[in-house]
């Protein structure tokens, strides 16, 4: 510890010395004049314009009224610079006589003091120059050295989504987002430039208004996994997308290294909306709509199904159907037909959303207050729904002298989700089409005398979640000198979750005679709290031809997680099921309080020379409590550079159509600490179960002090081109990221007693790829506007090295030189015409098919390329937006997890080419009702063979919206927009197993259609 202390002290001190030693001072050895005046953009005063005495360090910045004042001698030249405007220079000497300058100016005759007003001229090519949030600092699009993608409120608002992550889908190169369930509050898999880590987290770091937001779900999988995949309820759905002003995604080392150990998987910065100067504005918007499951699988109808079953029994040599073959032995009506997908997930969900905002500002202080309400029902047969109420408040203040700034924002959301205890989608895939009716004549659940596992019985159990979330952020800054600003960023976040899944006795066939003493409930209550303090110093200096920005800061974060999870069984009455005190038995499944502390020092030096050459150095020293002593601290950093070659004279003069040309590159190291807390300790924890009045203690972890940070080295290069002043904008990027020192929950064989252990594996994973985006303003006339945005990503994931792979627990999962997304499978060579059973390639030639030796067929399920095409077409007051999203990849089809054809489980209706007679050449093996062991074994291999992988590529009309703005009678009067919005409207794919993005048997993404309006006053 002591050493670390000393080392970091030394670092900070050298920073301090560097700063002070090189600090500017003011030379005062010449006769001085005071030049003052007002800087305007023609109409409005411009505040924050840099006024600099050329070749000196003297200067000033214009205040809110645009006033400035600077002292200079007659030989000096003044330089006026402001982002988005042309830089202007004027010699002080010329101010006393000539009138030939293009500046508007006036002179006062008093003692050498000069009043000089300046009109800054807009730099057309930078007109749209966006200021991009890079987290700890802001940078103009033009000057950025890193790779940062961005969407803004304009794009988010066109989508009827409840989760901000959904709004990003298909819109950014290098960002792949897949929804894991069609239910609101379900999780998303977000991968920025591929999967870096074999086993530690691959989630990006989320920063909301400067505050890191833990994206790890608080859900306990035992409670929620039957409804939401993995019990992974997305924390991001607690943020109302309509409160978001912009989302920036930091991708390369240059942009992410300042986030050190947490930057390896990219950083997603979410900035909420702020108030604007001007009159107080009220806005109300609301939409309502419907959603349905968009893509289903075609299953066999009763005739085809029963034919299959009968054939299966005949194949198995049965003359008489067994007692439990209810579907064919006459127990169930052979003429019934139910489309179970229609019956169980074929309903319509309704969406309602309302948002009211009031905002305003008076130059010094701005505010915004908004409230939102979102409700979404489900497609399941009973009444289930999702509700969210959110409040967003934002205040910022600047003192009149422009030195002090205060910024405060708060986001609060309450969410209630009422869902069935089981997602019925999986059941629809297996139920026999002639299974009995759901209700008997008296309206009770029908169990058909104990022969039918009624799927609606599952709806008796409920999965309820209740969440509350508060994110607050305060930022105080004080400009001590024009060049030096001290600031502190502070945040407090708290999230509470209360979830439960009930399993009442009414779920079961009443003939089992189970009373409510069999009813049970799983509950989980979790509370997460974190605070953050980040003191920082910013220093910038504009010199004659160059500009220097320096930032140093520290970050302290503490997070506590408190979880209490129960299982209770046996209630006198089901209405008491939520009262744990009423349970006959109560056990504690988990009671854990964990602490995570995090400390960092970071810095950035950005130097711009002649507006052409930019170098950006960032670094961070991180310490995390997730590692044992001696492995706790690590250093990360990056260097980025950019060359604006369009500023070079030879381009400026000869190729003026090129408004911006920039080459940029960066290289650096980031890290990953997503491994959970206390993993290095050997611990015992309570099981919560009693034996002989003693509560059990079980070993929970093996002692393991030797694991450390995962490091991710990123190289990225890019070319930014802009033609004809913003008409055509092109970005090419190449990246190559290598993750080493892989932190892995190394799976252990069962004989060790534990499923896994954390360890640093000497494996190297490479993600490389090309990204391309094109934005055009194709048509730009008074009435017509047509913008197009195209993005395309071609990623490649590769396992570069894996020492001793063949002896490791990953031997049968990965292959060096292949992607991490490969699946090792059997290779089906066809159906044996003699026996009618699938044949597989015997890779090791031992005459037997066995795993793992013969699972050598390699299929890669990573996307080969993906992207989106977005169009915005407007004519007068009418605007049409639509986004096509496309992905080229292979994926699992229905075969994975399917029943062997012929068993009492439905099959897709295209399972027709089965083997029937000796000599048949067929695609599917013979049907068996489960008595042909060879066929069963063969099917179990077939499920994990190349037959389970097919092309799952698709083109999706992800999103479309049509907006009409009612003509305004006069400036400032009521503004009204009406709109139609749709999600997931069309799908073009060859994939035959439902939605190509939902391969796990949960509810696929919904098709949504909404209608709404927005009033602004």
């Amino acid at each position, binding site marked *: 510890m002591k050493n670390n202390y000393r080392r970091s002290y030394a670092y900070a001190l050298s920073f301090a010395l560097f700063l002070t030693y090189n600090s500017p001072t003011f030379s005062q050895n010449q006769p001085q004049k005071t030049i003052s005046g007002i800087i305007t953009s023609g109409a409005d005063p411009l505040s924050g314009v840099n006024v600099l005495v050329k070749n000196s360090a003297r200067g000033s910045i214009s205040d809110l009224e645009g006033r400035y004042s600077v002292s200079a001698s007659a030989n000096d030249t003044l330089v006026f610079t402001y982002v988005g405007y042309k830089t202007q220079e004027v010699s002080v000497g010329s101010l006393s006589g000539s009138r030939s300058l293009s500046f508007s100016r006036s002179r006062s005759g008093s003692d050498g003091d000069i009043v000089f007003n300046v009109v800054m001229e807009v730099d057309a090519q930078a007109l749209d120059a966006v200021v991009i949030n890079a987290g700890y600092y802001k940078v103009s699009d033009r000057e950025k050295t890193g790779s940062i993608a961005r969407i803004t409120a304009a794009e988010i608002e066109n989508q009827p989504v409840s989760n901000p992550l959904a709004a990003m889908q298909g819109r950014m190169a290098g960002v792949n987002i897949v929804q894991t369930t069609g239910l609101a509050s379900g999780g998303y898999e977000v991968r920025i430039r591929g999967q870096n880590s074999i086993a530690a987290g691959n989630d990006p770091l989320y920063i909301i208004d400067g505050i890191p937001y833990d994206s790890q779900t608080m859900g306990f999988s035992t409670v929620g996994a039957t409804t939401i995949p993995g019990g992974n309820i997305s924390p991001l759905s607690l943020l109302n997308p309509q409160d978001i002003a912009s989302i920036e995604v930091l991708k390369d080392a240059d942009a992410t290294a300042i986030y050190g150990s947490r930057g390896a998987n990219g950083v997603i910065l979410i900035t909420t909306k702020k108030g604007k100067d001007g009159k107080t504005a009220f806005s109300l918007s609301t939409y309502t709509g419907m959603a349905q499951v968009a893509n289903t699988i075609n299953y066999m109808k009763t005739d085809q199904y029963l034919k299959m079953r009968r054939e299966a029994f005949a194949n198995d040599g049965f003359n008489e159907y067994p007692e439990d073959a209810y579907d064919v032995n006459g127990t169930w009506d052979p003429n019934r037909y139910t489309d179970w997908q229609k019956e169980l997930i074929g309903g319509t969900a309704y969406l309602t959303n309302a948002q009211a905002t009031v905002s305003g500002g008076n130059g010094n202080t701005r505010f915004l207050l908004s409230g939102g309400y979102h409700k979404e029902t489900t497609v399941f047969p009973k009444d289930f729904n999702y509700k969210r109420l959110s409040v967003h408040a934002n205040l910022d203040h600047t003192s009149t002298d422009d030195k002090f700034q205060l910024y405060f924002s708060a986001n609060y959301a309450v969410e209630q989700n009422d869902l069935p205890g089981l997602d019925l989608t999986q059941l629809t895939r297996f139920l026999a089409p002639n299974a009995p009716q759901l209700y008997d004549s008296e309206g009770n659940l029908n169990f058909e005398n104990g022969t039918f596992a009624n799927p609606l019985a599952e709806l008796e159990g409920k999965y309820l979640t209740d969440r509350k979330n508060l994110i607050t952020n305060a930022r105080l800054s004080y400009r001590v000198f024009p060049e030096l600003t001290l600031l502190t960023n502070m945040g407090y976040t708290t999230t509470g979750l209360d979830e439960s899944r009930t399993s009442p006795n009414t779920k079961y066939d009443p003939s089992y005679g189970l009373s409510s003493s069999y009813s049970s409930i799983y509950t989980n209550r979790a509370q997460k709290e974190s605070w953050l303090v980040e003191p920082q110093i910013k220093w910038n200096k504009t010199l004659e031809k160059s500009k220097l920005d320096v930032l140093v800061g520290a970050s302290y974060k503490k997070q506590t997680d408190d979880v209490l999870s129960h299982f209770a069984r046996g209630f006198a009455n089901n209405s008491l099921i939520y009262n744990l005190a009423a349970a006959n*038995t109560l056990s504690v499944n988990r009671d854990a309080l964990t602490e995570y502390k995090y400390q960092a020092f970071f810095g950035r030096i950005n130097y711009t020379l002649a507006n052409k050459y930019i170098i950006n150095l960032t670094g961070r020293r991180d310490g995390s409590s997730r590692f044992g002593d001696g492995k706790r601290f690590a250093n990360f950093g990056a260097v980025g550079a950019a060359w604006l070659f369009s500023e070079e004279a030879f381009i400026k003069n000869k190729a003026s159509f090129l408004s911006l040309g920039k080459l940029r590159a960066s290289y650096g190291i980031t890290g990953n600490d997503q491994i959970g807390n206390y993993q290095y300790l050997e611990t015992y924890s309570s099981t919560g179960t009693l034996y002989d009045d003693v509560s059990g203690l079980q070993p929970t972890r093996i002692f393991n002090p030797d694991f450390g940070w995962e490091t991710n080295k990123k190289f990225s290069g890019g070319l930014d081109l802009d033609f004809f002043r913003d008409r055509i904008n092109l970005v090419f990027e190449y990246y190559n990221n290598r993750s080493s020192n892989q932190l892995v929950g190394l799976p252990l064989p069962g004989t*060790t007693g534990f499923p896994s252990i954390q360890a640093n594996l000497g494996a190297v994973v490479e993600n490389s790829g090309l990204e391309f985006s094109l934005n055009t303003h194709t048509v730009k006339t008074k009435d017509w506007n047509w913008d197009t945005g195209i993005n395309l990503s071609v990623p490649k994931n590769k396992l570069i090295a894996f020492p001793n792979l063949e002896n490791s627990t990953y031997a049968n999962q990965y292959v060096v030189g292949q992607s991490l997304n490969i699946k090792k499978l059997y290779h089906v060579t066809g159906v044996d015409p003699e026996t009618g059973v699938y044949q597989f390639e015997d890779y090791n030639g031992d005459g037997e098919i066995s795993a793992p030796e013969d699972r050598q067929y390699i299929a890669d399920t990573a996307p080969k390329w993906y992207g989106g095409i977005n169009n915005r077409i407007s004519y007068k007051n009418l605007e049409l937006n639509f986004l096509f999203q496309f992905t080229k990849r292979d994926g699992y089809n229905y075969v994975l997890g399917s029943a062997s054809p012929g068993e009492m489980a439905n099959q897709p209706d295209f399972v027709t080419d089965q083997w029937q007679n000796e000599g048949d050449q067929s695609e599917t093996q013979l049907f068996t009702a489960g008595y042909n062991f060879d066929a069963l074994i063969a099917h179990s291999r077939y499920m994990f063979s190349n037959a389970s992988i097919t092309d799952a590529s698709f083109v999706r009309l992800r999103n479309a919206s049509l907006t009409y703005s009612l003509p305004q009678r006069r400036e400032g009067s009521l503004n009204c927009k009406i709109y139609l919005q749709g999600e997931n409207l069309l799908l073009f794919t060859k994939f035959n197993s439902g939605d190509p993005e939902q391969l796990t048997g949960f509810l696929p993404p919904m098709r949504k259609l909404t209608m709404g309006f927005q009033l602004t006053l």
Partner: protein
Amino acid sequence: MKNILKILKKFRAMRALNMYPILLGTCLTITACDSFTEVDFPQSELMGTAVFNDAASVHAAFANIYSKLRDNVLITGQTNGLNVLLGLYADELDYYGVPGEDAETFYRHSILASNTEVASIWNDTYNLVYATNSILEGVQNSKELSEMEKNAFMGEALFIRAYLHFHLLQLFGPIPYITTTDYRINKDVKRLPENEVYPILVQDLLEAKTWLTGQENYEHTRPTAQAANALLARTYLYQQNYTAASAVASELINDGSLNLGDTTEMVFTATNPSTIWQLKPEAGNPTWEALTFIFEETPAFVALNPELVASFEAEDSRRLQWIGEVAVGNETYFYPNKYKTREGSGDEYSVLLRLAEQFLIRAEARLYLGDLSGAKEDINRIRSRAGLDPTVANTVESLKLALENERRHELFTEQGHRWFDLRRTQRAAEVIGPIKPNWKATDVLFPIPEMELNLNPNLEPQNPGY
């Protein structure tokens, strides 16, 4: 480059003395607390070494093992325990549950190497082996525990380790015998042939017996020296070491604190003197066995094979007292009714080792040692207790069958005895083959879970047939 140098030069010329305090102050706050990242130990967990500073927490570590055995693992009375799974696999139970569930694959003999129930048996049992080894190592290294305490804990842990491996051995054949917590060793272990596992079992049990001698456990809810003996006798029998099996069984039969009794009533109640080791149900709850087996209308999960019921002699009190029946229409269904209490806490505990088995062990040992009258005497002791006349079997072969039958009737649906008997006497093909259409000779062993072979190639080869 030139430019940069020029600028740096300029900076050096500048001074802003009043910035020192601010910068210095800030830097100091930044660096002052490097120890910020120290966290307290998790409040809800206990450091491994702390467990063994105190007898109470060692008891808690054992409580974990017993509650897992009772509620989840291996010989649990729940639907995933050997009572059910091996009952279905052999000829004791018929399956009436939802088609396609894991239990059905046992009934149909359609177990594949990917079977999740088989994987759970393997993994959960080895997890408990880890727990016992962790106790063994922790107790040995503890400086706080007394010698007395240490001995008792060591004996208990060794017994459980043997008990767990015994069952794995019967299910999977050659298995790794795990004696350390070191994952670096355990992740690459090899399987030992069956005949090499038995001596280790014997050694563990002998040692357990030594440590446990003199330790009392009134309710038999924790293993005692008697329990070690009982499992030892069974192990010797399976090993075909008949002399030793007979001797150890005799020790228990002659132990004054145990008594077989003259009736088959109350055998599974907590205080029955024939019980050697039993698991106590969770407070306020009945045994899992009763919950799993008893039904009131048509069976919803499993029912006794009517053949088994029919094979009882009419006057056998076990047929009347240990088997329940439900008539639905023309059909009569049977269920194991050894445990009767279904609601609330009863006076029944889940019995794992009991004296009746020792009589049957000794009978078998005597039979193979050529002591036919001694064997008959032991068989008849069991029969008379069930209200039956002495056996009419007289020859070695007929006595073997009589004994097999007696074991079947005495020990049905108890931790897989029936299946283990058929397997070790090589009678499985003969008895089970005709009634299971999927029967294969290789069914005598379960597959090593597929995933385990992936994770530890040293476990190869897979058991034949999978």
